[in-house]
């Protein structure tokens, strides 16, 4: 079933002194079905984070509509939790406190005991047991994003929006957290929409990759079904016969700079 639908969304920025507004992207349409993991891949500055913010409701589209469960989205909401690139943890709260404000907001009727139990469950899920009392400044990037993930998962949203979630984490830790994310995604049966510029991350994690052309006037140019079966491992995925076919196609797309061709789809099934 179609969970998220982005319908011809365009974003323009007003530019001072110029007649025409700057067009970040134009007429972007996409759909995400339930329990799917979809990644939008594109160059830095192509507007993919802006697209994610529009879906999250923390930015406004100039034109177009976004639907969740066939209802139009106006403003942010708990059913669309965001995991931020720069973590966006409240520095004055502890690990526990950062997750707790989300739980309290999502389940206002719960008592203190229920809330704390729920928070602890997610602290344990992301492997931060023992670090509950620490402040974000005392944590490594990887640990910070574990808190970010726990905060997002604990409210049980309809869809999880990941905005380059692992870009600021060192490469070794990144791989571990990516695999943990997949495990949590499997376990919870949640739908995930991610934007990234990391090709290997997109292939490792996604069911489907949408390729976005560089801005201005960015568009979604192509769609790739990553047919590689799960569970995928960082070490084993590269041995799969279609891995390089997918990867090369993405690299080719990212390195081309001429006028983009119209969108088409291609299925690479293992």
């Amino acid at each position, binding site marked *: 079933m179609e969970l998220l639908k982005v319908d011809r969304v365009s974003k323009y920025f007003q530019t001072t002194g110029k007649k025409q507004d700057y067009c970040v992207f134009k007429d972007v349409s996409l759909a995400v079905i339930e329990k799917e993991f979809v990644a939008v891949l594109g160059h830095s500055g192509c507007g993919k984070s802006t697209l994610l913010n529009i879906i999250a409701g923390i930015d406004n589209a100039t034109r177009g509509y976004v639907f969740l469960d066939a209802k139009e989205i106006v*403003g942010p909401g708990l059913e669309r939790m965001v995991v931020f690139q720069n973590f966006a943890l*409240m520095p*004055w709260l502890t690990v526990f406190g950062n997750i707790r404000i989300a739980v309290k907001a999502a389940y206002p009727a719960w008592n203190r005991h229920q809330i704390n139990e729920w928070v602890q469950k997610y602290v344990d899920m992301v492997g931060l047991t023992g670090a509950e009392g620490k402040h974000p*400044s005392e944590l490594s990037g990887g640990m910070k994003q574990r808190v970010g993930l726990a905060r997002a998962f604990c409210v049980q949203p309809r869809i999880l929006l990941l905005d380059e979630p692992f870009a600021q984490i060192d490469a070794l830790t990144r791989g571990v957290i990516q695999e943990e994310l997949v495990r949590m995604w499997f376990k919870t049966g949640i739908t995930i929409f991610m934007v990234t510029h990391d090709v290997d991350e997109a292939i490792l994690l996604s069911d489907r990759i949408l390729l976005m052309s560089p801005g201005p006037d960015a568009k979604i140019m192509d769609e790739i079904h990553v047919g590689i079966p799960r569970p995928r491992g960082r070490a084993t995925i590269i041995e799969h016969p279609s891995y390089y076919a997918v990867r090369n196609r993405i690299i080719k797309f990212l390195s081309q700079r001429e006028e983009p061709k119209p969108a088409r789809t291609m299925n690479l099934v293992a």
Partner: protein
Amino acid sequence: MNNSSTKGSLILSLVFLLVFLGFWQLVTTRIKSLPGPWPVAETAYYFLSDPFYDKGPNDQGIGTLALYSLGRLSLGFISGSLVAVILGVILGLNQVLFKAVNPYIQVLRAISPIAWMPLLLYSVQNSNITALLVVFMASVWPTLANTAFGVSSIKKDYISVSNILQMNPISRVFKVILPGAGPTIVAGLRISMGSAWVAVVPAEALLGTLGLGYFVWNEWNNLSLTSVIFAILIIGMVGVCIDFLFNKLAKGLAYVD
């Protein structure tokens, strides 16, 4: 903190004190009518040995007077700060309003609170309330400006998180906005407290309401310069103690981004 450097600072502080006392003594040998350190110390001993005596409404112990001043300060400061923080949060969250009001804040905060006194006294016809209002006026502006600035410069991400979580306005203010702007607000409160304490003394002196400022003026009228100098020292010491408390508060609310 490095232990040996703390020790060094302490020794240097004592050296400065001795130099100051020596200089003071030297000045008094030139200006014979000016009391030196020793008579002031004797006066201090006299006043401090019975700080809470009560010899009628116009002759109270120095401790009692200090408490009067502190009470006036607390009342004016707390009410002023409350107004300042509430207004500051509103302005900080509303950039259009902030920009519209900011020029007036800048003008108002440039005015010495003492300058309001005649107008206030004429309006309320009561010296105690006037003194309170002067302290109130002195407390408002730095906190207001700092709160508005602190709130408006909270990272957009934190606001986004509170929007996504659909937090209600009350928890938004108390869980995100106030803690986020906390360090900046406390910095404002500290400046406000300083200027409020500075305003208390002349307000009391001019209005004749019981307190340390009144004491200074009264002793000047008695031509007792030793008492005046003693009062100056007390005013300074009380100020230092207040600032120390704010330092503690600032440390408690600080966070590492």
